[in-house]
């Protein structure tokens, strides 16, 4: 249950930093720091894996069901449980999202979040295998999405069908957003009661989780024959995504991975649509959380390393088509990157 490779990394980090105890904290939204060492999807309110400098690991949880799953101790009062479990110099991964009362109970801990996130970015062979399985499921999920969508169906009904398919196929979780319509659509959101119509551009990002790890795919589908502007827009997105994929390799800066995508939009006169008014990020890291740092943005300074797994997605609003999405999960290799998705790279239509 305990990831021994990660434990060795963490104890090395603790020696380097002089920490006596390291707490890997998780709650219902962000389980990733806990799961990077103890890969169990706990169902209770809080969980912490506590590592001592000698490498002992102890889990405390708030739900009796979780105590058995993680071979840990259930505590009625999580703050007291944390306080009793640590001494000396204490660091916490996930401290920023931890309730203030828990941090205060520990005393004056330091944040280990950035250090642990950096360790997590470089994936082991086992982690890459899990991400490949998640990508396969993302591909199958999108096939299903494209198969079942039909005019007259509500957005939330389509999402229910896709969620049912992904869970039936072994997904532990899935992060999914959707949008439908024309040039009035400025971004994706949770599904609404809106019913699909011929001519709609339907965007989605599917992010199934397999054995803890999330992979993502972004595609756009047009109901009926795409119009010339939708085709023109897709051409720009496909070129931008390819620019990122051609550029991505160890040693490049993540800012430039964003820049090469944005440059394609600039080349076609749509540079203003690469800013925060119309888009969020040009991609992001993937792993135990569906939206990890570093974000692919021109103002983020981070040097890409081998065995990182990143999605490059130049998703944005364009006046040609409304909001459009296109992206694949990429594994950084020794001299470039390889795409883990196999879904056809096209503007889908039905």
């Amino acid at each position, binding site marked *: 249950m305990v990831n021994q490779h990660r434990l060795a990394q963490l104890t090395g980090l603790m020696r380097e930093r002089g920490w006596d105890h390291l707490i890997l904290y998780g*709650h*219902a*939204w962000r389980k990733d720091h806990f799961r990077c060492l103890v890969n169990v*999807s706990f*169902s*209770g*309110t809080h969980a912490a894996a506590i590592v001592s400098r000698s490498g002992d690991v102890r889990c405390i949880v*708030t*739900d*009796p*069901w979780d105590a*058995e*799953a993680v071979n840990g101790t*259930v505590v*009625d009062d999580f703050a007291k449980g944390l306080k009793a479990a640590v001494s000396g110099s204490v660091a916490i991964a996930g*401290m*920023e*999202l*931890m*309730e*203030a*009362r828990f*941090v*205060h109970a520990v005393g004056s801990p330091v944040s280990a979040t950035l250090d642990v996130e950096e360790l997590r970015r470089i994936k082991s062979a086992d982690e890459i295998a899990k991400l490949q399985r998640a990508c396969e499921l993302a591909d199958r999920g999108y096939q299903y999405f494209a198969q079942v969508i039909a005019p007259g169906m*509500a*957005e*939330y*009904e389509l*999402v*229910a*069908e896709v*969620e*049912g*398919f*992904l*869970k*039936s*196929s*072994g997904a*532990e*979780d*899935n*992060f*999914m*957003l959707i949008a439908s319509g024309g040039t009035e659509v*400025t*971004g994706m*959101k*949770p*599904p*609404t*009661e809106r019913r699909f119509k011929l001519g709609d551009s339907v965007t989605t990002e599917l992010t199934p989780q397999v054995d803890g790890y999330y992979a993502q795919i972004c595609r756009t589908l047009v109901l009926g024959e795409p119009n010339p502007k939708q085709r023109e827009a897709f051409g720009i997105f496909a070129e931008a995504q390819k620019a990122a994929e051609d550029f991505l390799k160890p040693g490049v800066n993540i800012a430039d991975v964003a820049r090469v995508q944005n440059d394609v939009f600039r080349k076609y006169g749509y540079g203003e649509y690469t800013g*925060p*008014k*119309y888009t*969020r990020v040009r991609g992001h890291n993937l792993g135990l959380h569906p*939206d990890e740092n570093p974000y692919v943005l021109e103002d983020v300074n981070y040097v890409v390393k081998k065995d990182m797994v990143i999605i490059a997605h130049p998703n944005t*609003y364009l006046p040609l088509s409304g*909001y459009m999405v296109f992206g694949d999960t990429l594994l950084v290799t020794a001299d470039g990157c390889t795409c883990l998705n196999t879904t056809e790279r096209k503007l889908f239509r039905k």
Partner: protein
Amino acid sequence: MKRGWITWDKSELPPEAFGSRLAIARNALAAQNLPALVVYSDLWKSNHGRFFSNFMPYFNRGLLVIPREEKPVLLCGLSPRVYPWIKSVTILEEILPSPNLPQRLLQVCSEKAWKKIGVFDLDQLPFDLYTPICAGVECVDVPSRSIRPAPDKWELAMYRRAADMVRKSLDEEMPAGVGLVDHEFVGRLERKFRLAGAEDLVILVTNGQAPPAPAKGAKLTAEFSVSVALEYRGHWVKSIRNAAGIASDSSAVAFGEDLSGPYPFDANKTGPIFVSHAEVRDHGRRVFFGDTYLNAQNGIEAL
């Protein structure tokens, strides 16, 4: 995660419900001579913000600011591109883009000349917000229980609807579960509940060797149990059923969970809406059952 249908049906939850709820908060502010109440909201801790505004963050975080004399304002980590959607499903008319939530809150406090504010469950704020906010303005803890001691009639109606949805669907689906791979059974439930309007779901299963847990690819046996926690328009309920049909047993070991707070509930506590669930040993297997209850003034009622 929140990926179901997030909407505002005004026949189910009329605008006056929010007027009534905000009035309670404002009375509490007046009693403590506070100019505003701040309510934290994220993907997990969404219920309090939902209660006052119907705002449900599907991702990211926000702070709902309820001034004593003015309309509520949302300080929002999400992009302004989705504000039209947020406004369509909430009472909110003003949303301020807030990539840095503490900074934006302190700016609002400064503009309004607020020297002191109330914060819902202050010490439960995430640490990265707590520290800068408390450094910039005097914060007074306002316990959520003091404002929301019991569900109002609109909440109660939705709890009842959610509980009914779970109970009936499980009655329909349990007989077909034996022999299915757990993933397939969970997928069937997921589809059914999301089509019925579930916003979020947590489905756990077991064949009786251990407590319910996420599906692992096992074939379900005649001893299987399933736990379904479902969120319907901000209201969580939970039911646990078993294929053996056991619904009570004098040897059962019982647990309680408070459903009044954010998912996934506070174990071993019982608030006004709570789950009572139990485990019994049946021929060496562990069998689970439970339901959602209302702890009302006139006694306990199964929802």
